[in-house]
């Protein structure tokens, strides 16, 4: 290797022509006393240990109680068990494809390419909000939709939305504490109601959010419900002006109330099977609606709805026209990280956004390296 050659050449030159210059600084420093040598060696040791300790401190090694993405994922695994190859939350899912037709109305809010008039391809995944990939569908379970918009300049926009009108947990610590409170009791295999009550008592914002959530009866299926981004984002337009927004996908399919119990007791996948049937009949559509904040509206707390009457901008239509099992769709391997944003869209000060990005990444890294078990919704189920 060249550096070696260079050094040897220098040494050779040195040896032949500059014999007196091999020790340039202090040719004969006075010998150190034993005490001085010991003190200097100790200083070196202390300095090196200090560097290592500072590094480990940054990595959280001295704060075992600190919430980290790893501890979040561990807690999901404690509550749900480890299901090889599946997401740690929103584990049961079905993949879809389609496109987004932007009407250009969003361009005054954000310079993101996705809001210029035109069509971009979309791939997505419907899911249920729990960690069991084989859970029985229930109307009361949170429904999720993750989308990836592929923009013509190579940028991407990813978003993960749910059907709740507000999010019941205001920050990562509340999310984690709620997860711990929902851990099944080893004897009853059900969450301890006392722990849930204690959590609500200490989190009034969650109680208020749940009251709003309960006033919205769940719809009958995946296809006729809203999906909400919930966390606020900051949009920047071509003039550099910033606006805070929250977004909603509003279904074109008419709302139909769910009937409470599962309509078909024999089909544990009735929600997913309903989605498959309806997408085979006709493409499903949603309007993407941006709600624009006024000064003073909370941008850092998704438990609080913005006041009625805020300006709403319909920026285009999402069409989903094909459906795939996770086993045959690339959407299984997409991390719907809410902070994969094109230029013109940025996070707000909501602490959940960065935490979601971190924990999704941890979940993705864990499942990426695992054997992929078959999905509950198989390719043959999708073709029925």
């Amino acid at each position, binding site marked *: 290797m060249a550096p070696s050659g260079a050094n040897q050449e220098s040494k050779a030159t040195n040896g032949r022509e500059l014999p007196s210059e091999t020790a340039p600084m202090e040719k004969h420093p006075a010998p150190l006393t034993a005490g001085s040598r010991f003190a200097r060696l100790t200083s*070196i040791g202390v300095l090196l240990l200090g560097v290592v300790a500072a590094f480990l401190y940054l990595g959280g090694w001295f704060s075992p109680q600190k919430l980290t993405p790893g501890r979040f994922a561990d807690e999901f695994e404690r509550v749900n068990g480890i299901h090889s190859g599946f997401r740690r939350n929103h584990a049961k899912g079905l993949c879809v494809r389609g496109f987004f037709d932007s009407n250009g109305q969003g361009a005054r809010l954000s310079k993101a390419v996705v809001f210029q008039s035109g069509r971009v391809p979309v791939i997505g995944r419907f899911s249920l909000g729990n960690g069991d990939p084989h859970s029985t569908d229930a109307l009361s379970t949170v429904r999720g939709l993750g989308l990836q918009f592929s923009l013509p300049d190579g940028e991407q926009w990813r978003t993960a939305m749910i059907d709740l009108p507000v999010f019941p947990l205001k920050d990562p610590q509340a999310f984690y504490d709620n997860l711990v409170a929902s851990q099944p009791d080893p004897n009853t295999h059900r969450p301890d109601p006392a722990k849930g009550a204690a959590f609500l008592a200490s989190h009034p914002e969650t109680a208020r959010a749940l009251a709003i959530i309960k006033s919205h009866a769940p719809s009958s299926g995946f296809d006729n419900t809203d999906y909400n981004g919930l966390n606020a984002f900051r949009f920047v337009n071509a003039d550099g002006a910033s606006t805070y927004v929250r977004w909603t996908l509003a279904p074109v399919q008419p709302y139909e109330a769910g009937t409470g119990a599962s309509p078909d007791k024999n089909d544990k996948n009735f929600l997913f099977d309903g989605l498959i049937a309806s997408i085979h009949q006709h493409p499903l559509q949603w309007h993407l609606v941006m709600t624009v904040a006024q000064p003073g509206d909370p941008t850092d707390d998704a438990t609080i709805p913005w006041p009625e009457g805020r300006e709403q901008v319909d920026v285009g239509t999402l069409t989903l026209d094909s459906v795939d099992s996770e086993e045959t769709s690339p959407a299984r391997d997409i*991390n719907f990280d809410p902070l994969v944003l094109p230029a013109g869209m940025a996070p707000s000060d909501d602490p959940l956004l960065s935490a979601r990005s971190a*924990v999704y990444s941890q979940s993705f890294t864990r499942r990426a390296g695992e054997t992929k078990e078959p999905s509950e919704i198989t390719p043959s189920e999708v073709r029925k």
Partner: protein
Amino acid sequence: MSATTTTDRQRFPGSMRFLHWLMAALVLTMLGIGIAMVASLGDYHSLVSIHRPLGIAILILVVIRFVNRQFSTLPPFPATMSSQERFVAHASEILLYTLLFVLPLVGWGMLSAARFPIILFGSLHLFPILPHSVMLYAFLRKTHTFLAYLLFLAFVAHFGAVLFHTLIVRDGLLSRMAPWLSRAR
């Protein structure tokens, strides 16, 4: 031969010293950001947004540094160093150069294998350099962590060796790379 020339022959050229200290600052910052980021929730996004462009900057700088080194005259090792010590010093240099080159490439490669956007600034992003495979991603993600710890240990060893030469052997090793002007002799 003047005293100044003699001193200059004992030192790395200005370009090499500049790149060394610039990269030392960037790499230490990078190691700190890297280990803090994986344990962070609230700061994760800001840290990772710095981590990506900084990693690419280090990749570009290490290439420039390597090329620059090929065109530079290196000072001799101090006479106080035995041939074994010279071998270890040289091997650790090769290890550091290799890690500074491979670590950013593995980072770029792992995000490529996950088909995760590699955003540098605004809409500027990098193209993928590996095929789409989440298994490959998982392997490279572990490799990235392993190499980062190895780089940190190599840095600690390098720092320790320089401290030993400066405080115990007192052979002026540091003056070969020091950013300041050494005393004329």
